[in-house]
């Protein structure tokens, strides 16, 4: 079935559903008329290079074609089929050949400029690779859709960071990533732009020995509405996952983090945990975090979840002020530190420095 047909055949998602509870599909759809599939969405500007601007080796490429590999089926069909439907002209495959080791981080820059658009990106990373990928989404559209689905090969080590930094509008992001046997994946997520963000991030570990860390550094200011749903599937023995999600919420903004850990029967030795931290910077800011577990296997190392909300710590403020920091500087430093605890775990020092510098302006917007 074609994606348009599939989308139109689906019922409107139930607002009671975990995924759509805080951001109903009607509010995320570009026009609000959910039976409508906008036509003529243009292709955003895309550029792939090393972070320092230099060219990549031929073993690492992006091509304008749809992947021939089987699609992952563990994502929400509504948002996935919708992005597929509006991204006819924007089907790309990011491919890394087996045994490719890249010494420097690479940057995939996606700029939607001021046009509504979407991209359907297949990610095919081969076996025994080592790389760091930053996907930067920027522009000033009213609506942008990003679908990333694909596979990470056996024994591969990848730091995969997505930075949502649109200046306006709505960002709908869907990730469906299958993690290979004995591979190690860090999935970094930074959201600091767009008025509305709805992200549905799903990771499948159906091969033994896979290791996943999902990290979030979320900055919400002014009237932003940022909603991330993260599902991690443990569907093989000896799989490991951790979710650490830090959101700093200022102004009248609202951030939502819903997590779902599913450990299927037979996933012996699975080790899973999720933790949401919310730093509330104003009285009007709201943060909701709902971690959930579905564990069908008894023989696990551990499965836990937790959430913590609170304002800036008064004793930490006093400590910094006793070292001469003005109250504003102390608060800024503590917010940056809070976000940095997850940011610094996303990859190498080069990658971390780039991310930290890239977020300077957004950090200021949280406190002004």
């Amino acid at each position, binding site marked *: 079935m074609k994606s348009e047909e599939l989308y139109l055949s689906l019922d409107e998602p139930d607002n009671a559903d975990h995924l759509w509870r805080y951001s109903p599909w009607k509010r995320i759809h570009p026009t609000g008329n959910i039976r409508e599939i906008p036509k003529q969405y243009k292709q955003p500007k895309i550029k792939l290079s090393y972070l320092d601007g230099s060219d990549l080796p031929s073993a690492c490429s992006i091509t304008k074609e749809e992947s021939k590999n089987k699609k992952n089926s563990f994502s929400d069909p509504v948002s996935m089929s919708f992005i597929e439907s509006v991204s006819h002209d924007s089907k790309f495959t990011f491919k890394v050949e087996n045994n490719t080791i890249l010494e420097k981080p690479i940057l995939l820059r996606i700029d939607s400029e001021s046009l509504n658009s979407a991209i359907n990106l297949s990610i095919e990373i081969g076996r025994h690779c080592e790389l760091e990928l930053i996907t930067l989404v920027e522009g000033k559209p009213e609506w942008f859709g990003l679908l990333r689905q694909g596979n990470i090969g056996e024994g591969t080590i990848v730091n995969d960071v997505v930075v949502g930094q649109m200046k306006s509008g709505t960002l709908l992001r869907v990730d469906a990533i299958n993690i290979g046997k004995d591979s190690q994946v860090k999935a970094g997520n930074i959201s600091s732009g767009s008025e509305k963000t709805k992200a549905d991030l799903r990771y499948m570990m159906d091969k033994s020995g896979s290791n996943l860390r999902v990290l979030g550094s979320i900055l919400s200011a002014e009237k932003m509405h940022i909603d991330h749903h993260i599902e991690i599937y443990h569907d093989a023995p000896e799989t490991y996952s951790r979710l650490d999600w830090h959101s700093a919420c200022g102004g009248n903004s609202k951030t939502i983090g819903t997590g779902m850990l599913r450990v299927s029967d037979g996933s012996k030795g699975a080790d899973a945990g999720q933790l949401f931290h919310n730093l509330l910077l104003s009285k009007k800011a709201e943060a909701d975090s709902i971690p959930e577990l579905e564990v069908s296997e008894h023989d696990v190392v551990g499965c836990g979840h937790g959430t913590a909300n609170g304002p800036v710590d008064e004793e930490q403020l006093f400590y910094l002020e006793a070292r001469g920091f003005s109250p504003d500087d102390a608060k800024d*430093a503590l917010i940056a530190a809070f976000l940095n605890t997850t940011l610094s775990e996303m990859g190498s020092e080069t990658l971390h420095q780039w991310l930290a510098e890239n977020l300077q302006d957004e950090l200021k917007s949280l406190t002004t």
Partner: protein
Amino acid sequence: MSNDSQLLKIQDLYACIDDTSILKGINLEIKPGEIHAIMGRNGSGKTTTANIIMGHPDYEVESGTVELNGENLLEMETWERAREGVFLSFQYPQSVPGLQVGNFLRKSVAAILGEEAAKGKEFRNKLKESMKELDIPSSFLGRYVNDGFSGGEKKRFEILQLMLMKPKLAILDETDSGLDIDGIRTVAKGINAAIRGTESGALIITHYSRILEHVKPDKIHVLISGKIVKTGGPELALELEERGYDWLEEGSED
């Protein structure tokens, strides 16, 4: 600034927290170059005195004055006191995950001594030299402030800050607690390096005489129930070690 020759002058200081009176008329004067110590049991008001001088928002000053070189500290915010030259080495330093030690030190020194003092070769050399003196490895700079530090590392890090910030008045709140003998020696070396031979002064708050053997205070004050009940020379520490505080409690008011 007045012509008063006192570095720190506390007069008739009464203070409370949550309506509970803690300090009941403290009088204390420290001259430039002097090191004083306050000893006393738990709950006698030692840490409260330190926090009041630094301006902790939880404590309320009911009456009295606290002056640094004639300037009224009680009218200043905490950060203004720090920039005026007051340094508090915390009993329990806060951890700040995500804030790197190196960045924190640069920002603190810049805030207190000015931007120029926190950059260039001179700053790097001073940092390197001070870390060496305190047996702190260079890898420390990449760690997060007090995050996962052992008790000894936290105290040495406080003294490193003291050495870099060159305050006029250093208050050391139980900096020796939890340290082994080598740790106490190292920390004492840092305190002496920062204070001795300068116009700065220090107020050491402690339970034990051991650190005072290495720092040699000019005066020791005994605090009981929020009041200084006795002041003496370095020999008072040994007397307290032998006799405890009971003999001083008679005559002190609750």
